[in-house]
């Protein structure tokens, strides 16, 4: 497939997905659920300096970061770090893994000629929960390890360069997109084919490798919105100083809201691509 054709496929998938989402906006509801959990955890962490939350969250914060992070405005310096830890290591494996599968399941309902249903997809996803959780766990672990490795290498090579942090951020972003492109189909495969984690991962890698450029771009486009929020978050201390430290909450909430659409688009794009491709393959096999 030439680059023109690949871009044509990307354009077609985007068009199909937007058409579908306009017709069935409730497909984004799983990501609204993720956002609600994120906001809930964000507020819990935000309330860490106050009772009764201080009783539970206070000791680990004091132990790992110091007592000053239970006081204003230092709590806002720590808040993004804490939130992203909870999001990556708790909400993503426990909640997002299922919700991504629910979204994929709802899109699959549509291609079966049925009305996309959250509850039906959710019930099915729950039955495949362990596999979904493991896929998400593997994706997070790989992203984390590669991220650490990149950070180590870049810090070694560019130790004297003051923008090494920014370089690390940008390089990590593009590599994370690549990892997501490889894993993205696994949720859908577990959901619609009922496969186990290993065969789902294998099929996801094979399918993604065959269409890597297309998948990468389809993941990258929505993730650019997350990148924009990430850039804002990197300037957190500047905004804290320019406005008030509480602005950190606003930045994180913006990120959560943007993620409803970016996550929604990423998994709608890849689900559409996978299902349409399979359909095309099946019909060509029949003829």
């Amino acid at each position, binding site marked *: 497939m030439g680059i023109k054709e690949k871009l044509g496929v990307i354009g077609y998938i985007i068009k199909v997905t937007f058409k579908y989402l306009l017709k069935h906006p409730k497909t984004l509801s799983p990501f609204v659920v993720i956002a609600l959990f994120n906001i809930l955890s964000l507020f819990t962490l935000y309330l860490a300096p106050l009772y009764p939350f201080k009783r539970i969250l206070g000791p680990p914060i004091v132990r790992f970061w110091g007592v000053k992070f239970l*006081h204003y*405005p230092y709590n806002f310096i720590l808040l993004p770090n804490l939130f992203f830890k909870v999001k990556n290591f708790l909400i993503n494996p426990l909640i997002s893994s299922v919700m991504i599968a629910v979204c994929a399941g709802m899109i699959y309902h549509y291609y079966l000629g049925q009305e996309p249903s959250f509850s039906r997809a959710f019930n099915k996803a729950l039955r495949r929960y362990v596999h979904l959780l493991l896929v998400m766990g593997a994706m997070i672990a790989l992203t984390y390890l590669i991220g650490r490795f990149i950070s180590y290498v870049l810090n070694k090579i560019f130790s004297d360069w003051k923008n090494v942090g920014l370089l690390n951020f940008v390089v990590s972003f593009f590599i994370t997109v690549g990892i997501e492109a490889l894993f993205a189909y696994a949720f859908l495969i577990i959901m619609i084919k009922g496969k186990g984690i290993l065969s789902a991962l294998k099929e996801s890698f094979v399918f993604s490798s065959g269409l890597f450029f297309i998948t990468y771009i389809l993941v990258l486009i929505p993730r650019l919105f997350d990148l924009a929020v990430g850039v804002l978050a990197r300037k957190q201390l500047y905004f804290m100083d320019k406005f008030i430290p509480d602005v950190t909450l606003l930045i994180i909430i913006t990120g959560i809201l943007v993620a409803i659409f970016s996550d929604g688009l990423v998994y709608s794009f890849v689900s559409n691509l996978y299902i349409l491709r399979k359909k095309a393959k099946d019909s060509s096999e029949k003829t």
Partner: protein
Amino acid sequence: MNRVDLTIIVFLLCIMMLLTGCYGQYKAEREFWLTNRKYERILGRVDSTTSEEFEELIVDLRKLVISYPSWPYSALAQLRIGNLYNIQGKYDKALSEYKKVIEDFPSSTVVSAEALFVMGTIYQRKNDEQTANKYFDRVQQEYPDTLTALNIPLYLARYYKSKGRIEESNLAYDEAIQRYKTVINKAPDETKAILVLDYLVNCYNDREKWNEAIVSLRNIANRHPESASAQKALLIIARIYETKLKDKQKADAVYQEIIDKFPDTPLQEALTDYFDKNERGNVRNSQ
């Protein structure tokens, strides 16, 4: 997800948001931080600050003091009200605000000492040295361990010097030196002693008595050879040799002494670098 689930989540979110409204001490910290920022900004541009801006900040600080009377930082807020009047030259108002610090916050020793000290300086400005000295004496008697009290001998010596009263100034410097030596010798490992060492050096520095400074510092280093004060005293001696007396050989000998005597000092790396650079410089010169 049915409506009941959604209602529960929204309800929990509402409770959390409501909780953010009743956050006592945290709210005090937040308000203090915000007023403190205003205060620092005003200090940075006193000349262009209007009396309305001063008044507005005074009102904010007063609200803080009234709302959280038992909160430790309220004493500091009260002190700052006095400072804002003092900056504007409204000395009588400033004095009455400083008086409130001492009366209302007797347990805030550091802030009370500062308030008494500034009251003394106001009386000095009013050319009432007798009353001023009474306040300075009070600081030294009632709060002898505060840095404000320890700074007073040096402050007075400098004050007399600035007024051209050389004899009084010399006498005050000598008294200050004695006082500082006593404090250092009493507890050479305490942070206070290390800070007072700076005051001691300033006494010599103001009169450019470098050799006397070296003798005095050497005595401290010899008397308490393993103390933190000794380490700092040696470092200052080396700096005096290097920058004031331009005797690089002696400076290097003292730097080497620090390396030998304090192998665990955090200065070790910097000093090793210093000698490495010197060596490279010497090699280049000999070539």
